[in-house]
């Protein structure tokens, strides 16, 4: 029995072993710069492979079908190669996410013959920097405001945000402790974080 468990562990490990990226020392931006310098798709090959797993997840999230998800990854690669030859992309990761999401929405639209909301390409902008907030205030004042803002969240959001960010509990631990399901926990954390930012901004503008 013991050996069987050990064997099972080995088997899982074998299947889940990720192929190491020999170019891990080269950043995404450097790979993109290399591509723009010589227009050699070799660089894109290295870059795209870093995102295959995430793209597979995006495909599955929207299309809800394993085969379609795999096909969508291939189509997204082809589309991305074509587009990158046409214009310069600044923030590759956000851009790729936008391409993948648009592709999946188009597939759903084709499938259902319904009009779905398009995500505009202009959304591929720099990731929002929240750090600027913290630079504007003294640390004590910030803490005070954050505490006040946290108190203003509704009970569920307050509980989940505290457990997640302050007590560093995982989603699973929070579901066990609170009795909320996984989707609720994730939603309370996301919405709580967003509301916290809004409350804090309001306080800053008023104060």
């Amino acid at each position: 029995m013991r050996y069987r468990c050990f064997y099972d562990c080995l088997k899982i490990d074998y299947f889940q072993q990720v192929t190491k990226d020999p170019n891990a020392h080269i950043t995404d931006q450097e790979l993109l710069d290399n591509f723009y310098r010589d227009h050699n798709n070799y660089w894109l090959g290295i870059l795209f492979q870093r995102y295959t797993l995430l793209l597979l997840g995006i495909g599955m999230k929207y299309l809800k079908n394993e085969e379609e998800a795999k096909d969508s990854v291939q189509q997204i690669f082809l589309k991305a190669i074509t587009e990158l030859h046409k214009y310069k992309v600044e923030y590759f990761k956000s851009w790729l996410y936008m391409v993948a999401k648009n592709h999946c929405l188009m597939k759903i639209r084709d499938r259902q013959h319904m009009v779905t909301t398009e995500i505009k390409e202009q959304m591929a902008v720099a990731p929002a920097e929240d750090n600027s907030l913290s630079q504007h205030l003294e640390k004590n004042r910030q803490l005070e405001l954050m505490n006040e803002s946290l108190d203003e969240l509704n009970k569920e959001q307050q509980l989940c945000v505290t457990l997640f960010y302050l007590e560093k509990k995982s989603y699973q631990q929070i579901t066990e402790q609170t009795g909320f399901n996984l989707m609720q926990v994730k939603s309370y954390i996301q919405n709580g974080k967003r509301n916290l930012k809004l409350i804090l901004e309001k306080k800053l503008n008023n104060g």
Partner: protein
Amino acid sequence: MSKDLLNILSNSNKDIDNQKLMDYLSGKLPENEKHEVEVWMTENEFANEAVEGLQEFKGKKDLQKYVDQLNKELNLYIQQKKNRRERKNLKENPWMYLTVFLILVFVIIGYMIIQQLLK
């Protein structure tokens, strides 16, 4: 604790590698690392949606196989494209290749003549 409170609204910009993500999906990570992946997910919509999708795969142990297969096909496509471009170049510039070939032939003939003369 106070530091953590201030960190709620800041983005760490830390990326999670595919191995850790795969370990997270197969439930093999300890609690602290699981939390690290989940913080990354809250900061990153791309990652969050991708993980939600990956969790819907029935055979999670096949995920790496799918990734390897997709990467292999991508590399094959890139290689084929490169070969096509090289063939196209050959078709578009036959005179250049012919010129190089003729120069090589003249060099070889010249070398042989010189060798004969020296004998």
